[in-house]
């Protein structure tokens, strides 16, 4: 078992190193950030000074070594555009993204799973058509459009919900009292962006729940359970739902990662101060350290999560650890 975990850990490290190296190289293909700061007609001395300040006057290998060394020490560098350490800015924004991501995740599950089940249970009926239509709309209407419609209806016309930002509450790492309160405040700010984000993912949830449920309902063991005279409700809840949830939860987990890390469009529309907006700003301004930082942190979450899942698989299923 230990060997299995060590092997997985090594794979994870190699994946991370590849990610770090690729993102380091990719951002540098986008062009010269100094030219952006310098503006047209900037004198060469000014540009040279910025280049020196940003560490771009060194050769690429030297930049890479310095970048890796700083990374090992947990230093993502200074944002070119926001002039402060990337880590400080990232961790200031990260709780906001978590809050939005979790809320959207809950909405996508609450909408998607019951509708998918209902669709499968009432297959080829009006209910099924409603479920399929919602799945289609969820996947085909982009979140930014839903967001704008929500803003016009509930923000501008009705005046019920605020349309900008996340509200005054903040998660402050140095203030433990905010670690709990933050999640339960300013829900009026959260409602529209969370729905707009969760809406898109709910379409996929409807589909996967419906198809999973149909597969399970057609399986032999469900037929056997029914033959044994188990009440239909028990058949659904205890036997069918439980078994069809494996792919649903797998997808939900991936969705959650996406919602937390790259909800770029929704964050921009609602001016939600999350990491997605950081990435967008970074890309728009050739802010190498910021793009690197956000991508590496997102990658780190995925790699760590995969490592944990692999390790758990190995624990619960000996065939997996033995086969590798």
């Amino acid at each position, binding site marked *: 078992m230990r060997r299995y975990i060590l092997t997985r850990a090594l794979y994870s490290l190699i994946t991370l190193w590849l990610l770090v190296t690729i993102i380091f190289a990719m951002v540098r293909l*986008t*062009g*010269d*950030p100094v*030219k*952006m*700061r*310098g*503006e*047209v*007609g*900037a*004198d*060469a*001395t*000014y540009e040279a*000074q910025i280049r020196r300040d940003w560490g771009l006057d060194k050769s690429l290998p030297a930049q890479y070594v310095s970048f890796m060394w700083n990374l090992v020490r947990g230093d993502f560098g*200074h*944002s070119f*555009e*926001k*002039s*402060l*350490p990337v880590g*400080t*800015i990232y961790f*200031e*924004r990260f709780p906001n993204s978590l809050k939005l991501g979790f809320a959207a995740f809950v909405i996508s599950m609450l909408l998607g799973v019951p509708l998918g089940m209902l669709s499968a249970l009432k297959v080829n009926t009006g209910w099924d058509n409603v479920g399929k239509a919602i799945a289609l709309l969820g996947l085909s209407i982009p979140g930014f459009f839903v967001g*704008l419609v929500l*803003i*016009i209806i509930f*923000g*501008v016309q009705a*005046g019920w919900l*605020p*349309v*900008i*930002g996340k509200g005054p509450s*903040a998660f402050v790492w140095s203030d433990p009292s905010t670690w709990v309160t933050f999640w339960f405040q300013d829900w009026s700010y959260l409602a529209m962006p969370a729905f707009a984000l969760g809406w898109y993912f709910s379409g996929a949830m409807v589909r996967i729940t419906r198809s999973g449920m149909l597969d399970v309902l057609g399986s032999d063991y469900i037929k056997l359970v029914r033959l044994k005279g188990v009440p239909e409700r028990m058949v659904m809840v205890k036997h069918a739902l439980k078994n069809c949830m494996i792919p649903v939860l797998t997808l939900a987990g991936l969705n959650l990662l996406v919602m937390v890390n790259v909800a770029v469009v929704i964050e*921009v*529309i*609602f*001016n939600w*101060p999350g990491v997605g*907006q*950081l990435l967008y*700003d970074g890309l*728009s*301004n*050739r802010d190498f350290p910021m793009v690197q930082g956000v991508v590496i942190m997102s990658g780190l979450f995925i790699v760590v999560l995969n490592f944990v899942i692999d390790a758990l698989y190995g624990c619960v299923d000996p065939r997996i650890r033995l086969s590798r």
Partner: protein
Amino acid sequence: MIKGLLALVAALALCATPFGDAAAQKPILSGPLAKLDIKPAQIEGKKGTPKGTLTIAQHFALDPGWLDPLEHSYVLTMQTYDYLVHDALIKPMPQGEFTYSLAEHAELTADFRKAAFRLRPGLKFHDGQPLTTADVKWTYENFKGAYAKLFRDKIEHIQVVDDRTIIFQFKQPFLEFMEMYSGGVSGIGWVIPMHYYPKVGRDGFKAKPVGAGPYKFVSQQAGVQMVFEAWEDYWRKTPATKTIVVKGIRDTAARLAGLQTGELDLAFGMTGKLLPRVMSDKNLRWVPNFTSVWWLMFPGYNEPESPFHDKRVRQAVSLAINRHFLSKQESQSIGPVWGNWISPENRDALKGDGKDLPVPEFNVEKAKQVLAQTKFPNGFEFDWYVPFVPYFDMAERIITDLRAIGIRGKVQSLEGPGFRAKMAQGRKGFPGNRTIVQNIDPRPGGAKANIGVYATCGSPGSMVCEPHIDELWAKHQSSTNPAERDRVIKQIQRILIEDYYFVPIYWNPFVHAVGPKVLPEGKGFTRYWDTLHAPYPWPWEDWEVKG
């Protein structure tokens, strides 16, 4: 008895005022002095009470670096924050482009080799520490933003005479000193507390700046929001608004929605497709906020094979553009068609409304006739039309106009960084010789700043390189006669327009909109935009909102 006392008080008051002025005007430098046109500050004697919150939407992410004048770049947006937290010796204000601020008196020798300032008495930073000439000197010596090299190269010596008097001695005549030292052009004039900056370091200062401006910094979330609170001890007046919150909101629709819901009180950059909605909303008010002029350039025109090498082709391009229609589509006709490529708010710019330079003509038939006399009587195909990002609709309209006379091309839709990086390289950024570039540049520093960047051979951003223009430019640079310099700058502008090196389009309004909370109600609120050549409505201490 009472009458006697009143007479005494009145007599003392009469004596004190001229005496005070005289003290402020007491000469610092000896020898002949240059004539300076610096307006006096408007100081409010009565102390008011700040009230209410003004929430502002900036149209891009907020950079904490903007709070540090020592690293001031060329970007004008930074001055929004200078005007909030910091203060300069002289700066543009509604009453004049050069207005006394921390300084109450300034002098410049007639040979432009020495400049001197006297600070107001009793100046302080937000933390209560006195602001003295030592801070002014320290700021100058530690400045490393845009134009830092120029200031460093020019300075011979800075003499701190006393806590309120400072003399700058230059190695050679520094004609632009007052203009560049003014807060309107560079960050070097905004005074930084020398007791605080080294203590907290660069990052610390950006995270929590201390200045001498009308607003104290309260808090920020990098890129998202900054909060400022009125500093009631500000020397000029008590700021009228208690709290100013600035939010970075990139999306125009979000800014409009924020204004409509009352979450925002002032939003920048409302031009474009949403402008009609701003104009039709009864709760919103707007100001045109003219910035600069749209214009076309032809990089590579000086290569003989380039179709744009022929002045008549460039003239045909100009004649083919329906500027009134463009202005209607882009700005609801707020932007006037303009005959110069430099904003008329620059005091050395020729007016493009027919006064100095003619309003450009729209005449497709004439354009065809002019083109018929060239090597391209039926038009030609050019490589790219590269517009300032993201004005792609406007680019398509211009392309359509050009197609009417047979000049055909495609729009190259770059992203912002790509466009800016190309522009920074001047002609080298646009290989080939069949490209048209559409640009706008609200650059401070007068017409000469624009000419120096775009129309001289030595500039990295040069788009026009002509020996006769360079000769004039050299004459301008070597002259110490302000009248002659002004004449030469105007002569260069005339050449650039009359020879169609640059083709101006219209004077662009960068519309700002305010919500119902902003005072005064009605049209009086436009006074906040009275500062000349300012892209944003400063000074902030004048802004009033409902409490």
